[in-house]
């Protein structure tokens, strides 16, 4: 009965919200927005600090923001500070997992199945491919969909594969810690360099190059590689914490 009432209440609230949004003249329907009046237009035209020329893929040079992928331009350049914050969210979450689940002496959790030889060897072969894909996605974040966060998650998923396909496997957690710490610090230090040399925190100090080149967009690929490694090592650390238990 309680669940039923909860369902009714939720449906009622949902109806209220939908009907409110539908009748609100300031809430545009999907696709009806006039983008030219909004901040998004200037992101697409790279026109925040003034740019009169047209942005052409493979030709435009040294735009104010270099990534060909507009989402990356917003996430890692125009609003890079938010990304630093999100990186911190993941950092403190993985720290919390380690704090609550990690002890000093740990061993692998007993699985109630034992992977056979073929699975173990096969997963090692796959591991490299998944890892490479993850790194590729991170490095090409300024050109193609993806970037540091999805790339890092892929790197971690290759570690998860090893953990699941081999019940003896333990990664070197200390290495993850060092990687996590150095990449995080490097991100902040890049930001501080911008403040010191350019006057703005997280300012892009390198040349942006030709839009669409692999070596373009200045700092962005470097930041995305750092984020990829950081996210990868943090989530791998979380996986290790969940698949181990205390005691030797």
């Amino acid at each position, binding site marked *: 009965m309680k669940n039923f009432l909860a369902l009714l209440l939720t449906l009622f609230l949902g109806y209220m919200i939908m009907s409110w*949004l539908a009748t609100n*003249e300031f809430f*545009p329907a999907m696709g009806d927005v006039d983008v030219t009046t909004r*901040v998004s237009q200037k992101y697409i035209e790279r026109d925040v*600090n003034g740019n009169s020329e047209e942005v052409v893929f493979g030709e435009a040079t040294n735009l104010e923001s270099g990534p060909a992928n507009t989402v990356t331009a917003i996430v890692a350049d125009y609003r890079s500070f938010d990304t630093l914050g999100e990186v*911190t969210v993941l*950092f403190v979450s993985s720290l919390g997992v380690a704090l609550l689940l990690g002890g000093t002496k740990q061993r692998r959790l007993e699985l109630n199945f034992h992977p056979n030889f073929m699975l173990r060897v096969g997963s090692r072969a796959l591991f490299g491919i998944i890892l490479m894909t993850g790194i590729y996605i991170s490095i090409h974040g300024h050109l193609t969909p993806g970037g540091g966060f999805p790339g890092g998650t892929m790197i971690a998923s290759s570690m998860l594969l090893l953990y699941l396909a081999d019940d003896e496997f333990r990664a070197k957690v200390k290495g993850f810690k060092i990687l996590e710490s150095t990449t995080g610090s490097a991100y902040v230090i890049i930001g501080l360099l911008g403040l010191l040399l350019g006057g703005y925190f997280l300012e*892009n100090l390198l040349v942006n190059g030709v839009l669409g080149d692999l070596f373009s967009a200045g700092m962005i690929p470097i930041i995305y590689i750092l984020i990829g490694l950081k996210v990868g090592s943090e989530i791998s650390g979380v996986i290790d914490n969940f698949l181990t238990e205390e005691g030797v």
Partner: protein
Amino acid sequence: MSAILLIVVPLLTAFISILFKKAAPYMLLIVSFASVVALGYMPLEVITIGGFNAPYGINLILDSYSLIGLYIVNSLFFLVVALNCVKYKKMSTILLVSLAGLNGLLLTGDLFNLFVFIEVSGIAAYLITTTNKKPLATFNYLVAGTVGSSLYLLGLIILYAMFGTLNMADMANEIAISGASASATAFPFLLMFIGLGVEAKLLPLNSWTKGILGSSNKLTGPIIAAVYAAAIGFVFGRLITDLFLINISEVLEIVIIIIVIASIVAGEAMAFSSKKVRDILLFSSIAQAGLVVLVFFYGFVGWGVFLIIANAAGKFILFVVANHASDELGTDEVSSLQGLFVNNKVVGVAFTVASLSAMGMPLFLGFVVKMNILGDLFSEGNLLIPGIILVTSLVEGIYFVRLLIKLWYKEDNLPEVKYDFTLKYVVVVLALLLMVFGVYTAPIENEADNLNTISFVEGGDL
């Protein structure tokens, strides 16, 4: 010195500190002290990040409003750390992250960036409360906090869909020039209000509070009830003054006033009927949070700020003293703490000062603030709200006096609690400040009339 360092330096130190576990507590101590000192060297300015001007890039706002917030939050944070960094070594990195998050909350001028910092400081807070050793209460806090911040985000998404910007100043401008009716923005504002209300402990969104503060220790009590409460109070103040009040519908106004008054009345009533010291304090801080929001809602920014300061300093003293006793004795029943101050007179006096200031007795800071708020409300011809504040203050007075009498008088069989020198020093200094500014009111009254957030709609100068 750029104010962004207040966010970035603790963050950098946090990243480094996971490699040097032994040194982490000292890093925390140094960084939190340096943050307080550095505040003296920061000019009031709007800080652009990444070289992209607002509303396209993110900006931080250091006006006199956020500066005073930074001073109180950073100083109290440093005091909490100084009292606890030896005992809770494991928390050092998390405390560094929470310092970065709290400073971000106070500084940011961007609504989405605010959400990011709510998340950062929130997750840090959940982890800090794990030291209570009450996993279920922490889990409740986590769920409530996460749902709350998601609602804030949902409200923000709707606002973004409507007005196409995330910057606070730009949003306020867009709303003002769009001519949107007040009911058009009521729903997203309500969602954002609920989201922040969870952290601010407003009724009925505060179900986590009893589990967390009711079993708090010397770290979690002061940090949640004083430091976090102050930071959220300042965030609320900024959003209410600069965003909500620009375009508020009558219905939403009534809903908010009902929520706030319910928090005040229920908080004081619950505190009145509680038998444990920590419960009394936590219910009284729910009521105070309600009062803070109410004051901002009626537009008295300056007095809202001083109310936050008086509350934060007072609650800091009360929780530190009560938590130390309950950590030592393992209980916080008033009956078993009876006579606590007979052998701890110095601490007892500080506790008394803090509670007298909280109930609004003359000669203390709390009185000055409450008096002026009541005066301002009366002069606006509002009689209902001052009446409620007066009656609840009376209730507050009764239970605090009852508590004080029990803690001061007992003949024999006294509880054995020793307070160390640092703790005594800290609470006495804070209590002295409450008294000094309670008597020497000129600078505060002067400041309160001038203090305001930047008015975004009029173009905004510092």
